């Protein structure tokens, strides 16, 4: 079982951020919102932000301290074309002790390419030697492989015609290049036909975006270059459509303990800040952000993606199909489909998957996020989860011996994995369905399950929280009015860091959630009364069952273990869930083609023909 160090670093970056030089966009008040920013000034604003990242990182080098600086500082200095002599010395020194697997490979790849005309011959030779003597782990998941093979591809391209003895892999340059290309094409094909496996990750978005940027910047083969470019657009368009003011919302294959509550606080917000300019960057620019910034001059954000990310004048629902990570055991399906729904308005977003064990450890299955003027320090979200953990889950996705894994995870940056107050992670006993901004989640937890309760997260930043005699809980977050109807009795427990935990120790359980904007109602009382009047039937035996007609007039019927119904029609996920289906993104399953649209703008990413087509409708 191999998790990785990215998730461990939030605190480190925060500490670094405090002790380091200026990060104006992280520390200063948010500038007044201007949306959309004119296309004539956006590139300059983008380059200014890029420079802010690089300047900050480069300034961490202390001339008086020969130990200061590492790979990131070298990358920043080289990107700024500063102090090639220091960079060369540092690289020569750092290459003596390589380590960090694919997280070492891509920074070194970045440095090798940025340093082609800056580094000394000695430094270049040191890099070359490290790629012979140090065998990085290839990893055990999609983001690892994206980094590993992108790096290996580019380095094999940089050093062609070399024998196997010159590479850690024992393979020739041509063999390394071929294998890397095959993997990358395989991954792109999977992603553009049945969806990403590690989909919509709040941190790991970087581990796809950065490698794809490098391919688009540095691959000699024009086909690989355009593939990298298209995949980068694909990933960023996916994020753009699932974001609210730069915050990645709804269901995620992976997020972390911090960003689960403070939705802004992660690497995804670095991309929101850098590319869309619509949220502050996280501390230290998300840590890895510098490696995107170092090559960012090679990327120009397409206007259509920018507008998808920033235009929330109209509400919309996006349907997405993804897939699970590779399942090794406890499943007859290698990559089961994931069916996502996300509804976004100017004031709030609500998003979900279908529930179940779709990813190990860090899955986040549904939430409500409300818009806030400044997201820093704010827990602007509400959701529930079954505090499930098991060796069964671990064995499904990892191939280690079973018994130690649940405990081992807690030492590897996931301290809450086996804790009863856990909010992160999926459960095989959870089933979710969402229609627009109404959601039903059901839990049918077998007797004997280690934790047989449901945890609901009610933030410290809710401005109202009322328990109504009707059984509904009414909450206000920003301009979002949220109605949450627990299906079983509960009590409140406090949460370290603020907020309240709805603790419901009943195996047959669930919740009905309806969100609306305060603009829709003349008063808070009117909202509550309208919710109370909505038709709602609840049964818990023999299985949890809910029939609910939401604010938008749709009647949703969910019975645990059965397909949901909308207005009496059974939902057929397999037929109805495209790869992307929204006013902004359209892609068919198996299509290898994504159409991005915003008003008159259209961009088509076609992997069948390796063509990017831009169109403006008259």
């Amino acid at each position: 079982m191999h998790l990785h160090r990215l998730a461990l670093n939030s605190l480190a970056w925060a500490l670094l951020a405090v002790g380091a030089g200026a990060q104006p966009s992280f520390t200063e008040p948010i500038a007044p919102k201007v949306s959309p920013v004119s296309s004539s000034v956006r590139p300059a604003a983008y380059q200014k932000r890029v420079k802010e990242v690089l300047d900050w990182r480069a300034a961490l080098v202390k001339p008086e301290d020969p130990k200061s600086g590492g790979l990131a500082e070298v990358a920043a200095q080289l990107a700024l074309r500063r102090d090639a002599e220091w960079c060369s010395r540092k690289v020569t020194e750092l290459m003596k002790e390589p380590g960090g697997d694919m997280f070492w490979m891509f920074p070194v790849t970045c440095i090798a390419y940025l340093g082609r005309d800056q580094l000394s011959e000695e430094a270049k030779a040191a890099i070359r030697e490290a790629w012979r003597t140090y065998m990085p782990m290839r990893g055990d998941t999609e983001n690892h492989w994206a980094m590993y093979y992108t790096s290996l591809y580019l380095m094999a391209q940089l050093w062609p015609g070399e024998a196997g003895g010159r590479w850690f892999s024992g393979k020739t340059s041509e063999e390394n290049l071929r294998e890397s290309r095959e993997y990358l094409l395989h991954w792109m094909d999977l992603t553009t036909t049945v969806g990403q496996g590690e989909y919509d990750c709040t941190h790991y978005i970087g581990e796809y975006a950065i490698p794809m940027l490098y391919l688009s910047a540095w691959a000699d083969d024009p086909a690989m270059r355009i593939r990298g470019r298209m995949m980068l657009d694909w990933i960023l368009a996916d994020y753009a459509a699932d974001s609210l003011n730069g915050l990645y919302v709804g269901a995620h294959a992976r997020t972390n303990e911090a960003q689960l509550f403070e939705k802004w606080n992660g690497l995804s917000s670095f991309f929101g800040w850098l590319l869309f300019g619509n949220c502050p960057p996280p501390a230290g620019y998300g840590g890895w952000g510098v490696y995107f910034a170092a090559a960012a001059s090679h990327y120009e954000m397409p206007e259509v993606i920018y507008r998808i990310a920033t235009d929330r004048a109209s509400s919309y629902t996006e349907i997405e199909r993804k897939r699970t990570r590779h399942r090794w055991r406890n499943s007859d399906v290698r990559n089961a489909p994931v069916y996502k729904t996300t509804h976004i308005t100017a004031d709030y977003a609500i998003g979900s998957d279908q529930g179940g064990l779709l990813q190990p450890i860090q899955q986040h299955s549904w939430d409500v996020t409300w818009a806030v003027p400044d997201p820093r320090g704010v827990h602007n979200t509400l959701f529930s989860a079954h505090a499930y953990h098991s060796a069964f889950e671990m064995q499904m996705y990892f191939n280690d011996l079973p018994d130690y894994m649940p405990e081992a995870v807690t030492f590897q940056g996931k301290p809450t994995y086996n804790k009863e107050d856990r909010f992160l992670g999926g459960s095989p006993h959870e089933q979710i369905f969402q229609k627009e901004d109404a959601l039903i989640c059901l839990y049918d937890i077998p007797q004997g399950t280690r934790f047989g309760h449901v945890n609901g997260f009610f933030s410290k930043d809710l401005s109202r929280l009322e328990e109504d005699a009707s059984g509904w809980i009414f909450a206000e977050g920003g301009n979002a009015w949220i109605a949450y109807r627990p299906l079983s009795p509960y009590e409140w427990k406090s949460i370290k860091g603020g907020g309240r935990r709805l603790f419901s120790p009943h195996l047959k359980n669930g919740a009905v959630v309806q969100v609306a904007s305060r603009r829709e109602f003349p008063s808070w009382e009117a909202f509550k009364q309208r919710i109370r009047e909505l038709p709602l039937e609840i049964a818990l035996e023999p299985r949890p069952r809910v029939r609910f007609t939401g604010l938008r007039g749709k009647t949703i019927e969910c019975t645990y273990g059965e397909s949901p119904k909308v207005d009496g029609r059974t939902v057929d996920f397999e037929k109805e869930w495209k790869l992307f289906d929204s006013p902004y993104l359209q892609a068919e399953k198996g299509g290898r083609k994504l159409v991005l649209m915003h008003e008159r703008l259209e961009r088509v990413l076609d992997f069948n023909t390796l063509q990017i087509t831009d169109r403006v409708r008259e």
Partner: protein
Amino acid sequence: MIATITKSIRVAAILSMVGVMYSHAEPRHDFYVCVNVASRGSVMGTKLANLSGLYRATDRTTPVHVGFNHIRLETVAAEPMDPKQLYASALNGVLRTQDGGISWRIMTGWEMTESKDIAVDSNAPGHVYACLPDGLAVSRDRGWTWKRSDEGIKRKYCQSVVVDRKQAGRLVIGTEKGIYLSEDAANTWRCVQPTEATVYDVRQSPHAASVWFAVTQSDGAFRSSDGGRVWTRVASLTKDRTLHNLDFDANDARKVLVCGWGLGVRLSEDGGETWIERTPGLPRSEVWRVAFDPDFPGRIYASVYQSPVFVSDDLGKSWRALWFESAVVHDFVFIRRS
């Protein structure tokens, strides 16, 4: 001559200091330890201070690191006539060295990851079988090319593979859902013993080739006396604990070792009919791996989770810490020198 004597005295002194039973007989096998010595908080991308991967302890006193630093090197196997030709199952795939570990090549490509076990057919040199989390891979050319060969296996997860030392192309594998047998070099498979969960280890007796043993996650242990065709549950071993591995004593056909999570170490002196508790003296009962030393009768090794490797020279009646501060041993492997 003087140098040789000096060396001999030095070795004896070292052996004496570490308490290892000294034998004038040169071990017939090289002892390989496939180990992860990174701290338990290490994750993918952690810069590793200690060298993990493959260690060779030719003289049983000083383990020497061989090859790359690799935290997930599961096991090694050698070509039958050339102990310098080693295949390793590792997270990066199947690795091969032809010079005793000086240089290595990753023999598999991107499509084969996290190999769990590997076996070479001693009657068909160059025929190599590798367990993968999603099936079984076969090479007929010393690892240069591979193809999957797992038709008929219900759940593809493959943990353990053994080639019958008496018959070329006859294999037994442990999978997620049972023990499978192939008698045609992995072209076809049949389930000879279904299980609820993973079969973690399969072994053939070094004495009677018809005797096989297997241990599992939740079905206890199984024994076969007809070459792996029919298996019978070993009633004297628990089903309540995950059994990680077993080993036959090359020096005594009646002795068998088993270990597991929460089970500790158990020794049988009657071919698996009854078991003696051999955990006392170990720091905890979560035991990852056990092995007999074929060259030193009575000596056994145990890897206790996140503890040093322990050795006993009295079949587990007493133990002492031997190597590493905190280790997880994926396998102990003895490879005959010639």
